[in-house]
C-alpha cells in the first residue's frame, strides 16, 4: 500500500490537530476514480459527465453508501493510452480511488484493462465497445456495461437478413473500435446470411476521413449493403458526400451507434433516412423510471440526454449497488459483488455475466427518420443484450484467465 513518509506523518498530524472536529464529524467519503476524454470527445463525454454527476448527487443526497458519501475524482485521460494509464496511476496511488471507471476510445479501454490487471484494481469500462475488453484482453478486474461490438453488430445483422443484401461494403475508423466492429460484422454476416460477401473495405484514419475518395471507392465496388462504423466528424462528412453522390440509394445501410443523439444531432436535417441503426430514442421510451431520469436530467441541465448521459447515470448506480453488496471497499469483495450480479436500472434489469464481466445491457435498434429539422429513430425496439452475447465456449476460447 501507500508508504507514508515521516514528513507526511507530520503533515497529517498537523491537519488532524487543526481540523480534528470537522474530520471526525463525518467519515471520509469513498473515492472513486473516473477518467475520460473530455477534451477530444466532448460530444459524448460531457453529457456522460452530466449523467454520472446527476446520479452522484442523488445518491449522496440519500446518504451515500455504507454510511459514507461517494466522491468521484474525475480526470482527463487525453484520449491516449499512455495518458490514461498515467492518470489512472495518479487516481489510484495519490487519490486512493477504490475503483476506476470511464474512458471513451476502445484502444484506451484496452490499455486500461491491461492496467487494471497489472495493478489489481477494478476498472469498469463504461463506453469502449471493442470485444477485446471482455474477450481476448479481458481479465477479472475489468468489467463492461455497454453492449459490445459483437452484441450490437449481432442486433443489426439480424435486421440485414430480411433485406436480402449480399454484396457488403464496410467503412470503419482505423482503430480498435472500428477494426473490432468490422471483424464482428464479417464473422456474423457470413454465419447468418448465406451467400453474403464483403466486396470492399475502407478504413479511414479516425478524424481524418477523405470523404470524397472514400465514397467513390465504395461506389466503385457497387455494394447493395453498407456497414458503417464511422462516428463523429467522419460520419458527418461521409453522410454528406454519400447523400450527394447517391451512394445510399437502393442500398441497405447498417450503422452502429448512429441513432445515438450525440451523433445524430450534428447531422441536423441531413439524416440519412432509412438507415438501420443502434441508438437511443430517449424521447420515446415510456417506462416511468426512465422518464423520471429524463425529467431529472432536463431539469438539472436544461438539455436533452444523450446515450452518454444514460450510461454515466447507470454506471454510478451500479457501482453504488456493488459497493453496498460488497459491504466494503476491498477490491476482491467488489469483484465478488459484481460477478453475476443483477442490477435494477432505469432501463430495466441488467446482469453482469461472470465469465466475461460483460453486462447484459441491450441497445435500441430502429430506422433513422427525419422529424422536422432533426433526425430520430422509428420502428425501434429495445433488444436485451443477453441473447446476443458471445457464447460461453467463445469466451473460454479467447480469454486468458
Amino acid at each position: 500500500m501507500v508508504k507514508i513518509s515521516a514528513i507526511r506523518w507530520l503533515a497529517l498530524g498537523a491537519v488532524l490537530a487543526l481540523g480534528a472536529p470537522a474530520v471526525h464529524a463525518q467519515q471520509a467519503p469513498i473515492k472513486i476514480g473516473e477518467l475520460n476524454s473530455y477534451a477530444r470527445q466532448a460530444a459524448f463525454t460531457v453529457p456522460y459527465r452530466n449523467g454520472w454527476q446527476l446520479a452522484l448527487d442523488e445518491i449522496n443526497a440519500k446518504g451515500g453508501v455504507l454510511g459514507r458519501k461517494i466522491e468521484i475524482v474525475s480526470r482527463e485521460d487525453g484520449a491516449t493510452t499512455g495518458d490514461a494509464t498515467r492518470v489512472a496511476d495518479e487516481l489510484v496511488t495519490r487519490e486512493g480511488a477504490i475503483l476506476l471507471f470511464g474512458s471513451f476510445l476502445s484502444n484506451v479501454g484496452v490499455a486500461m484493462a491491461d492496467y487494471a490487471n497489472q495493478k489489481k484494481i477494478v476498472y469498469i469500462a463504461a463506453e469502449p465497445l471493442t470485444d477485446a475488453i471482455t474477450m481476448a484482453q479481458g481479465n477479472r478486474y475489468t468489467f463492461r456495461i455497454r453492449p459490445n461490438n459483437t452484441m450490437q453488430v449481432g442486433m443489426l445483422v439480424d435486421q440485414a437478413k430480411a433485406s436480402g443484401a449480399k454484396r457488403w461494403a464496410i467503412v470503419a475508423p482505423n482503430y480498435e473500435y472500428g477494426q473490432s466492429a468490422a471483424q464482428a460484422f464479417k464473422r456474423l454476416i457470413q454465419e447468418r446470411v448465406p451467400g453474403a460477401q464483403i466486396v470492399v473495405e475502407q478504413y479511414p484514419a479516425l478524424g481524418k476521413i477523405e470523404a470524397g475518395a472514400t465514397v467513390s471507392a465504395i461506389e466503385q465496388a457497387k455494394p447493395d449493403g453498407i456497414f458503417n462504423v464511422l462516428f463523429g466528424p467522419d460520419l458527418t462528412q461521409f453522410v454528406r458526400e454519400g447523400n450527394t453522390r447517391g451512394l445510399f440509394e437502393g442500398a441497405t445501410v447498417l450503422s452502429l451507434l448512429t441513432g445515438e443523439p450525440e451523433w445524430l444531432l450534428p447531422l441536423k436535417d441531413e439524416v440519412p433516412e432509412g438507415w438501420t441503426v443502434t441508438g437511443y430514442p430517449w424521447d420515446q421510451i415510456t417506462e416511468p423510471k426512465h422518464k423520471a431520469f429524463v425529467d431529472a436530467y432536463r431539469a438539472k441541465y436544461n438539455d436533452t440526454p444523450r446515450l452518454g448521459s444514460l450510461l454515466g447515470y447507470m454506471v454510478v448506480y451500479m457501482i453504488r449497488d456493488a459497493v453496498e453488496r460488497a459491504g466494503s471497499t476491498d477490491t476482491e469483495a467488489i469483484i465478488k459483488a459484481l460477478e453475476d450480479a443483477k442490477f435494477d436500472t432505469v432501463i430495466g434489469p441488467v446482469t453482469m455475466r461472470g465469465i466475461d464481466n460483460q453486462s447484459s445491457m441491450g441497445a435500441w435498434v430502429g430506422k433513422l427518420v427525419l422529424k422536422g429539422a432533426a433526425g430520430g429513430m422509428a420502428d425501434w425496439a429495445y433488444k436485451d443484450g443477453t441473447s446476443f452475447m458471445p457464447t460461453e465456449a467463445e469466451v473460454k476460447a479467447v480469454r486468458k484467465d
Partner: protein
Amino acid sequence: MLALDPSFLAVQALSGLSSASSLFIAACGLTIVFGVTRIVNFAHGSLYMIGAYTAATLIPRLLDLSFGPMTFWAGILASALIVGLIGVIIEVLLLRRIYGAPELFQLLATFGVVLVVQDLVVQVFGPEDILGPRAPGLRAPVEILGRRFPSYELVLIAAGPVVLGLVWLLLRRTRFGVLVRAATQDRDMVASLGVNQAMLFTGTLFLGAFLAGLGGALQIPRVSAHTGMDLSIIAEAFVVTVVGGMGSVPGAFLAALIIGQLQAFGILIVPKSTLVVVFLLMAVVLAIRPYGFFGRAEVVGGSHAVGIASRKPLPGRFAMLLAVVAGLACLPLVADAYLLKVATEILIFALFAFSLQLLIGVGGVVSFGHAAFFGLGAYGAALAVKWFGLSMEAALPAGLALAALGAGLIGAFVVRLSGIYLAMMTLAAAQILFAVAFQWVEVTGGDNGIVGVWPAGWAGGPVPYYLLTAALTVVAVLLLRRIIDAPFGYALRAARDSEARAEAIGLTIRRHRWLAFMIAGAAAGLAGGLYAFSRGSVDPSLLGISTSVDALTMLLLGGIQTVMGPLAGAAVLHALRDWVMPLTSLWRLMLGLSIIAMVLIFPRGLVGTVRDWWEARE
C-alpha cells in the same frame, strides 16, 4: 479492373483536384507570410480552424435572415475577413516581437498560439463539431460520365486557380505586392528602401490569415468544423510549402496539385498509408531538391544559432554531483508511490530533453521532430516485447538500437539541409513515423498502440523501477555531458558557430552532425524505452508533434544556453503539468501562454537567468 473504368478515374481525379485546391488555398498564405517575415507560422492551421468555425456559426444565422447564394458567399468572405483581423492581432501582439529571434523561438512561439487557440475555440464555439450549411444552389450533384459528383467540389476546383490568379494580380499589380515580392527576394533591400516595414508585415499577416480563414470557411459544406483541424491542416500545409519551395506561391500550387492526386489515387493502391505517402513525397523532393521546387537557398545573415558557450568549470561540481546522486537515491525513502512515479517520468523527460540539447544547444541543429527517436525507442521496446517476447532487459537496448538506427537514417537525410528546411524535414520525418505507427495496424496496433509492456519482475514496483530509471538516466546524462565537453562536442559547436570556419579547419560537418543525430537518437530512444515500461503501453502520440514540442519547451524553459538547463526544464514542466493539469481544462491555454511569455520575456530560461543573476552578483 480499376484502371479500365474511365468515369471512375475521372471522378477520382476531380476529387484530387478539389482537395488540391483546398490545400493550396490553405497553404498559400503560409508561404507568403514566410516569404516576407521568414517565420514559419504554426498558428496558420489555427487560423484555418477559426475560419471554419466562424463560417459554420455565422453563415447559418445569415442564411436565416436571407436565404440565397449571395448570403452564403458573403458569409464566407466575412469569415475570412474576421480571421484576417485575428491575424493582424497576432502580428501586432506577438510576431512583431520575434522577427529577429532564432528560428527555434519563432516556431515555439507560434506553436504556443496553436495551444492557446485550441482551448479558446472550445470555449467560444463549444466542444461539439459544427456542421456548416451546404451552399445554396449547389446541393444537387452534377453527372460526370454517368457518375454523380458534388457540384460544390467543382466550385472548389475552380477556387484554387481563382485565388492563385488574384494573389498573382495582387503581387504583380499593386505597390503592396511589389513590396511583398521585394521582401521575399531580399529583406534588407526593403529595409533600405525606407518602406514602412511594420505596415508591410502587418499587411502580409492580414493577407496570410485572410487566406487561411478563406481556406477554412470554404470547407464547411464538406467538413464539419472540429478541434483537430488545425494540426492536420498545418502538417499538410507545411508539406505543400516546403515541397513547393518556401515563399513560392506557384510552387505551393504545383505541390498541392501533386499531393491532391497522390491522395486521391493513393487511397486506391495503399488505402491505409495515405498519411505516409504525403510525407514521403516531401522527403523525396527534399532529397533531390533541398529547397523544394521553386525555393532558394536561405541567405543566412549572421549566425542565428544560440546555444551553450564555454564556461569555467564550477568549483565543487563533483560535490554537487554527489549530492544530486545521493538525493536521487534517497528519494524513495521519503516519497510515496505516486511521487516516485512522477519522479521517474521527470527523469525520463530530463534525459529526452537533454538528448535534444546535444542537437540544438550544442550542434545548433534545430530538430523539430525529436519525438521520432523517443517514439522509436518506445516502440522498439514494445515491439520487442510483443513480437519477440523479449524481457525488459533485452527490450530496452532493442529500443535504443532502433532509435539510433532511425536517427542514423533520418540524420543522413537532414544533415544536408540547414535552418528552417532542416526543422521542417525533421518534423516530416517524425510525422512519417507517426503515420507508420498509426496506419500499420498489423504490426504497431495503430491507434490502439501496444499494451502489456510492463517491467521485469524485479523492477516491477515503483521503487525499483524508479531506481533503475535514475541509474540509467544519470549514467546517460553524464556520458552525454562528457561528449559535450569532448572534442566531438566542441566540433559540433564549432560547426554551429561558423560553418565556414569549421570547414576551413577541416571539420567534416555533416559527418559530425550525423553522428550527433545517432547519439542523441540513442539517448532519446533509451528515454522512450524507459517511458514505455513506466506506462505499460505505447501509442502513436509518443511520435506526435506535441511530444516534440514538449522536449523543446523543456529546453526553452531550462535555458538553451546552459548545459544543465534541460534537466531543470523537464523537472519544472513535468511537475507543473502534473500539478496543474488535473485542476483545469485550460491546460493547453496556460501552456501556450507560458511558452509565448518565455520566448518574449525570458528567453534565457530558468537556469540561464539564475546563472546570469549569479554572475552579475560576483
